[in-house]
């Protein structure tokens, strides 16, 4: 019995460690949230961007014997949207997951290479995963709000990351729900279960939940493919509006969508049994002057 309790206790400090790490960085967590809140209120979006870009250097992701991604090199500049496109099974989700180290959760999955977020190599050994995942938010294909009320979906992560000031939490809830255009729709039923929302609303709540943690990078894995066209359009517009404040990487099957909202495009393809990035560049040059023959076929095939 005692041994069990010890195990539980030993794991608990994660939370407080995080808080202190955060405090050292910014003085106090409350202050940090307050600062962030200002930036959220400042809708002019002309504040200097603080989010660092991502640089992938020769990233390999393999599951046991199969190579999902091999030698992926990619620059993902901050303050813009980079779209990752390619056929099914070419390793887009795997690459995305490796950026927030979600690949660690799959036992047989191994990631090698280097991924730089600003100056930090996030694949380095001693990386604090909880802190990393706070800096790198992730939105999944099917909306996955937690089975609790709408506001708890945002309050719980904030509190878990050490935020205790209820008035700041309330403001954050209001701000991020406003950011995703959900505030007016749900302000009268914040206490109701998030699972009662429509799919599109759930997905926007998931985005709001990520924003509340003030991340630097946002990863979207086909965020619209489980939604109806109208909700899909809303989420798309929302993502477009986020790019000035975050580094955004978006996996999509919808080339038209990539063309509409992405500034840069990377094309993923399966070659010799493993996925790799065959071409990347700004959206116009990829769609109008593709260099690689496969890119040409892929983009035009789906255009025509």
């Amino acid at each position, binding site marked *: *019995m005692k041994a*069990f*309790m010890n*195990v*539980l206790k030993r*794991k*608990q400090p*994660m*939370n407080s460690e*995080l808080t202190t790490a955060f405090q050292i960085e910014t003085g106090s967590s409350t202050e940090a949230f307050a600062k962030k809140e200002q930036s959220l209120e400042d809708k002019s979006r002309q504040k200097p961007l603080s989010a660092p870009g991502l640089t992938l250097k020769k990233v390999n992701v393999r599951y046991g014997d199969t190579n999902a991604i091999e030698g992926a090199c990619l620059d993902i500049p901050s303050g813009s949207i980079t779209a990752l496109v390619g056929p099914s099974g070419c390793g887009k989700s795997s690459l995305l997951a490796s950026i*927030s180290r*979600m690949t660690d*959760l799959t*036992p047989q999955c191994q990631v090698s290479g280097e991924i730089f977020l600003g100056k930090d190599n996030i694949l380095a050994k001693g990386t604090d*995963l*909880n*802190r*990393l*995942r*706070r800096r790198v*938010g*992730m939105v*999944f294909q*099917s909306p*996955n*709000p*937690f*089975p*609790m009320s709408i506001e708890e979906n945002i309050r*719980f*992560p904030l509190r*878990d*990351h050490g935020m205790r000031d209820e008035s700041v939490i309330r403001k954050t809830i209001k701000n991020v729900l406003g950011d995703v255009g959900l505030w007016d729709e749900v302000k009268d039923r914040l206490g109701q279960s998030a699972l009662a929302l429509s799919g599109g609303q759930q997905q926007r709540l*998931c985005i709001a*939940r*990520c924003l509340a*943690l003030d991340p630097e990078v946002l990863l979207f894995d086909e965020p619209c493919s489980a939604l109806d066209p109208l909700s899909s359009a809303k989420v798309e517009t929302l993502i477009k509006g986020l790019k000035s404040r975050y580094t955004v990487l978006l996996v999509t099957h919808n080339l038209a969508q990539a063309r509409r909202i992405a500034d840069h495009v990377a094309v993923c393809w399966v070659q010799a049994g493993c996925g790799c990035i065959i071409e990347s560049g700004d959206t116009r040059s990829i769609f109008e002057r593709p260099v690689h023959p496969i890119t040409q076929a892929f983009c035009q095939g789906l255009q025509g």
Partner: protein
Amino acid sequence: MRTNIWLTRGLRTAAWLSASILLFILLFLIQESSPLIGEIGLGPFFQADGWYPQEGAFQLTPMLLGSLFVAGGAVLLATPLGIIAALFGQFYAPPALARLYRGLMELLAGVPSVVFGFWGLVVLVPWINRLAPPGASLLAGALVLALMILPLVALTADAALAAVPQQYLRGAAAMGLSRWGTIQRITLPVAMPGILSGVVLQTGRALGETMAVLMVCGNVVQIPSSWFEPVRTLTANIALEMSYAVDQHRTALFISGLLLLLLTITLVAVASHFRRMQHE
């Protein structure tokens, strides 16, 4: 196609058969108990001076309380331990250790109750006796039953925790939420109906357990005033007296059996309510 029809029919017949057997047992108990209830009513079973079957005093309250206390004590002990064990196996133990642990629990779940009783009698009772005589007591019964139901409480809790949708856990992990925070706010609440349905079913098992309890509880008919006093449970009473009971005495034992059956039916209904909650 033909075999399919026959399989369906066969299964349906078997299902009806087992359902009707339960019904027959219930009817049988009611039939056996009704003469005495018709004669003296239900009141005397809870108001008589005590349990003196020869004199026609059939006070069931001490034994009913004995059953409830022993089973309740066991559940109070086994539930937190079982949940902690399941959490450990699911979230903290390395996979190999968790597998070993689960195997051990399955093995323990298969140990016959009389072996638990025997262990209680030769190890636990003398040990309690040193703390507070006589040793054979409510506490001994609760401990032995707790040990007996712990494996299944832990295994059902383990299954309920494993059934929590991965997408919630992935979502929480992707936000960098602490493991304990995730367990507290997501895993446990989602798994709770499943855990509770397991606990309730095991409560029924503890209430119905006879042999182990008979061996370690001391079997004195009294309302215990402390955990160290001996008690007699309804089940132990039936087992002890059925062999020589006649007439009204025998009927009174059937009535206590009916009481037990009604209690467990209630518990099963509660458990299925929890299970329905989990599926929603």
